[in-house]
């Protein structure tokens, strides 16, 4: 509610538009306010638990000799939010606090919760849980690679393409090696999976063209 709305509401109260016509300061009104007996919300009808199995790739850095494994967790989807991130948080809170994952904005803008869900790289906070309880959901981390990923290269291109930036040549020089840029084989999985439609594949192609034609 905005500041303006609050002021208007109080002025309405003062003029007696169906509210109490006492003209009193807002704070005093709060302390004299009578709690209005709220209608008790109906008890949530006990839904039959809809249990889905999540298989999550786990590895303990404190016990590195133990091979990574897929650990199973059963979650009642009727007691859980709709997104994969909700399920992960529920598992961490209620079942296994050692489950570790990155997250921040929970609204699909920061990119922290990127992981491989059911074979596709997506953001956990944007990926809806498939309500089909008979199918299990597999969650893997993103692979860590020596080379630069599409996000980093997209960011690099943003600067290379900026006419106000005077370090274009240096940036391109940094990419002159086997690993940073040229591990890209134009598979285009990145453009397909980007939840924001940013087309990193296009940006990378543009860097390659610039590096080839200069």
């Amino acid at each position: 509610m905005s500041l303006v709305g609050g002021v208007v509401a109080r002025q309405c109260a003062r003029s007696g538009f169906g509210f109490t016509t006492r003209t009193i300061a807002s704070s005093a009104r709060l302390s004299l306010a009578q709690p209005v007996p709220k209608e008790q919300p109906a008890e949530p009808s006990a839904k039959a638990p809809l249990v889905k199995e999540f298989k999550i790739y786990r590895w303990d850095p404190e016990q590195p000799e133990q091979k990574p494994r897929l650990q199973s967790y059963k979650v009642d989807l009727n007691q859980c939010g709709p997104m994969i991130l909700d399920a992960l948080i529920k598992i961490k809170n209620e079942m296994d606090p050692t489950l570790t994952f990155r997250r921040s904005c929970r609204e699909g803008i920061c990119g922290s919760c990127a992981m491989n869900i059911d074979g596709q790289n997506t953001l956990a906070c944007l990926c809806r849980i498939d309500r089909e309880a008979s199918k299990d959901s597999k969650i893997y981390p993103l692979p860590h690679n020596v080379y630069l990923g599409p996000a980093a290269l997209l960011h690099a291109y943003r600067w290379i393409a900026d006419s106000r930036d005077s370090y274009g040549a240096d940036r391109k020089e940094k990419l002159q090696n086997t690993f940073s840029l040229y591990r890209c084989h134009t598979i285009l999985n990145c453009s397909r999976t980007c939840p924001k439609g940013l087309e990193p594949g296009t940006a990378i192609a543009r860097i390659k063209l610039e590096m080839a034609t200069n």
Partner: protein
Amino acid sequence: MLAVRAIGLRPALRASRPSAALFRTAKRQIKTETISQAEARLILDRQRLHRPSSPHFTIYEPQVTWLLSIAHRVTGSALSVGLYAFFLSYLAAPVVGIPLDSAHIVEFVHGLPEWIKYAGKTVIAAPFAFHSLNGVRHLVWDTTKLLNNNA
């Protein structure tokens, strides 16, 4: 939602101040120790030495993007192997004694059963056609055109 008036927020805050008891911090049950940045970095590096590489190729959902890409790679290497084998056979032919000129090749193929001729031509032509056409796609992409499907 509190609206701020000229008097300020203080009266409102006074009314809503929680009891002091809530502010008493709970006794910590877990002992922690502080380590320096350098020590933390050492621990991290030790972990990284043993960190396994998470699966990627084995778990990724089949999609048109990478299926075509891997088909391009596979057909490319298969065709290369075939071509190299054919070129090297020119070196091997005189040694082994099998002549490798057009007349002999034509005669050999003529003698094969029908179905082998059809199968053989398919096996050679299909990957070649796919790889060439997909190669054109790649060349178009290298000009930065037509890289995405969005309408």
